């Protein structure tokens, strides 16, 4: 057993070299390197490099409610067409309930309604017609809303100039955002907090009693002013043209009006806009954004060029943000921020520095301790420990894992736990040395006997780490990754590298007896 197999030496040495070489990109850490090799570096998590993590929830209830509102309007229209009167119509939780005077025409209404909307459940109960959204129908609304929201969010974030954002769907109705290096998440939150639904409506100035009673007749809506809640407008419910027809919007500055947003319609929008402005000269046209009137200027002449400006009491930032929102388009439903974690670059840098110090001091303490206890063997185990650290760093870089603060904690913990396999082996060698005198036989038995224990012990730790990965979230996953890699690397370094080093040491030192 004195002759260590050459192929084994070769494998150990090359794996160790690879482990060290591939740690180089992460240690140099050139952020903008284009070099294929230097690109294999660890990604720093948001908690270390600074940035914002946002979890947004699409407010689907708003969409369901909107759909129910549409049902109400449709029922009214159908009833009017068929000259049927009903007592009452209202929305109760997730259904529309229509109460008729008598049963006669209910079936007709139901059939006509069913022609318009598939995927709804219609129930007749005496004089009542109940309209419900099916689960499938809800699912269609949900999926298209998330898809659309993702797209709009992506456009808005891109427009805001954030570098390398990560935007993805999370679960049924959420969108996850990771914005590295974002210093001011408030602005991003403002951008995402608005639905940005832009519509143009003709103002009804004749029906003054409606405004006084605060009760909109059918086909009209009452909308407050953006700057003064007490100023209200009575508008046609139907928008003449909307934000979906915009092709461009820019913040602009006008000598007389101040900061404004100039916009341009596509062909269809331009036509609609031209027609409406031609037919309604003298009336007012309200620009409505997310349920408030920004401005409602008088149409003094037909606007057929398909472009215009929106003026309000904007400052430069507000005007350019509104332009961003209009260019990106409207969200199908409002987004609610359900979780936010933002870390400044200062704290991130502090965390990295503290983590490095903790790792180095932990390493030194463990190494000194190992030498005190095991002497030369301890020094050999320390070589394994250091290589172990390099291998963890290499693997993190190669798989493109993200290093987080808990991830650093995982590495420091691994430093303490990785020597365990070595300790198990040395303790076995110690026992074996009492039983016999042949040096290489002692070492061989020591390694062989420790093997199954090492496997059992490490697999249980791996189980815990893997489950943590499966159920954990965000930074905690970083911990389970470094811990798992550390455990795997420690098995390799103990069973192969320490083994190799011990054999080399015993061969070269030409030891005749072994006392650990």
């Amino acid at each position, binding site marked *: 057993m004195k002759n260590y197999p050459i192929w084994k030496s070769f494998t150990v040495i090359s794996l160790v070299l690879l482990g060290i070489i591939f740690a180089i990109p992460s240690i140099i850490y050139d952020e903008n390197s284009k070099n294929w090799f230097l690109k294999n570096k660890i990604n720093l998590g948001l908690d270390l490099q600074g940035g914002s993590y946002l*979890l947004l929830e699409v407010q689907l209830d708003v969409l369901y409610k909107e759909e129910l509102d549409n049902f109400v309007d449709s029922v009214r229209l159908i009833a009017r067409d068929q000259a049927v009167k009903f007592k009452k119509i209202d929305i109760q939780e997730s259904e529309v309930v229509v109460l008729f005077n008598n049963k006669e025409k209910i079936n007709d209404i139901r059939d006509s309604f069913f022609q318009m909307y598939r995927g709804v459940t219609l129930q007749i109960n005496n004089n009542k017609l109940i309209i419900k959204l099916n689960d499938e129908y809800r699912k269609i609304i949900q999926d298209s809303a998330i898809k659309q929201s993702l797209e709009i969010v992506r456009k808005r974030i891109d427009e805001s100039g954030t570098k390398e954002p990560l935007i993805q769907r999370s679960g049924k109705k959420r969108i996850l955002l990771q914005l590295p290096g974002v210093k001011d998440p408030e602005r991003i939150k403002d951008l995402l907090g608005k639905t940005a639904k832009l519509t143009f409506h003709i103002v009804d100035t004749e029906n003054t009693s409606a405004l006084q009673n605060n009760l909109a007749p059918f086909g009209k809506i009452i909308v407050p002013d953006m700057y003064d809640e007490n100023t209200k407008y009575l508008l046609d419910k139907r928008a003449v043209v909307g934000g979906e027809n915009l092709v461009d919007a820019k913040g602009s500055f006008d000598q007389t009006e101040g900061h404004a947003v100039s916009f341009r319609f596509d062909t269809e929008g331009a036509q609609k806009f031209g027609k409406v402005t031609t037919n309604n000269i003298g009336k007012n046209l309200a620009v409505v954004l997310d349920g408030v009137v920004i401005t409602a200027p008088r149409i003094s002449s037909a606007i057929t060029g398909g472009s215009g400006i929106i003026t309000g009491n904007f400052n430069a930032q507000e005007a350019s943000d509104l332009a961003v929102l209009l260019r990106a388009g409207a969200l199908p439903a409002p987004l609610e921020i359900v979780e936010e974690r933002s870390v400044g670059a200062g704290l991130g840098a502090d965390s990295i520095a503290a983590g490095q110090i903790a790792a180095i001091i932990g390493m030194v303490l463990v190494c000194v301790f190992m030498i005190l206890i095991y002497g030369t063997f301890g020094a050999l185990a320390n070589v394994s420990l250091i290589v172990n650290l390099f291998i963890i760093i290499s693997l993190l870089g190669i798989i493109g894992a993200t290093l987080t603060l*808990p991830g650093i904690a995982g590495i420091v913990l691994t430093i*303490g*736990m990785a020597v*365990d396999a070595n300790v198990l082996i040395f303790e076995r060698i*110690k026992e074996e040395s009492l039983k016999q005198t042949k040096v290489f036989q002692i070492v061989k038995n020591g390694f062989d006997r420790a093997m199954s224990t090492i496997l059992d012990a490490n697999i249980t730790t791996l189980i*815990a780490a893997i*489950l943590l990965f499966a159920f954990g979230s965000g930074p905690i996953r970083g911990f389970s990754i470094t811990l798992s890699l550390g455990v795997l690397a420690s098995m390799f370094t103990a069973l192969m590298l320490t083994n190799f080093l011990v054999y080399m040491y015993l061969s070269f030192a030409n030891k005749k007896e072994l006392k650990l």
Partner: protein
Amino acid sequence: MFGLNKIIPVEPNINFLGLRRNFLIFSILAILISIGLLSIKGLNLGIDFKGGTLIEVSTKNTSIGELREILSSSYSDLSLQEFGNENIILIRLQNKSNQESIETVNSVKNLIQDKVVEFRRSEFVGPTISSELLFRGFQAVSFALIAILIYIWLRFEWQFGFGAVVALTHDVLFTLGLLSILNVEFSLATIAAILTIAGYSINDTVVIFDRVRENLRKYKKLELVDLFNLSVNNTLSRTIMTSLTTLLALVSLFIFGGEVIRPFALTMIIGVIIGTYSSVFIAVPTLLIFKFRPQDEDD
């Protein structure tokens, strides 16, 4: 070679199991007190599990009292705390709804803007998320315990699995009890620490059990108590060595790793000590309940 390990005899002969009754009573008391504390005092839940807003700021020449004064006029459910040093202050607020959060963070920032050098971090966890995170944390811990049990069961006889799970449950409850007394913040990282403790404690137990199994085959005639004692003694220096190196690394993390990671390091330190204790004094004695050698009894 100048190994200091000669301090620990190779074949120590300490009668660990002789003391098992005392330690059993100690552990049962500790567990009962822990359960009592957890149900009465509870854990110091961080915003991960309670929901709310947390803002960490670094200030210049501003005392914590000044900041409190500025903020307390606008917010009632407010707590401020120095974090590491007197220039870094942690502000916690309890939010009622998701919508409030955005305004809260913004308005807090506006109120104290001129007193603050840097906004180091801001976190907001909404009520739906915090309850989800708590649920997932529970899920992770329970599944880990079950998976470890299954593994031990497959690798060893089921009696060992029982012993391991008793020790593990002991460790988790005992650690949680201490976290409650010490008022350590319970966060997502704590869940990670608890799971790692589970892995570590099992690791320790498995090493001893491995030896018990080996000795059961080797010494067919030895009394069980003596055999268990022998096994614990055989593995004693390894148990101590590994715990010490792990503790060295953790203490370094606790002292130098920064304020954010400190509760995690503290939880791990507590857990490693308890886990080591339970492997020797709880897991092994539990095996005495079972008769491993029915044929011996018949003789």
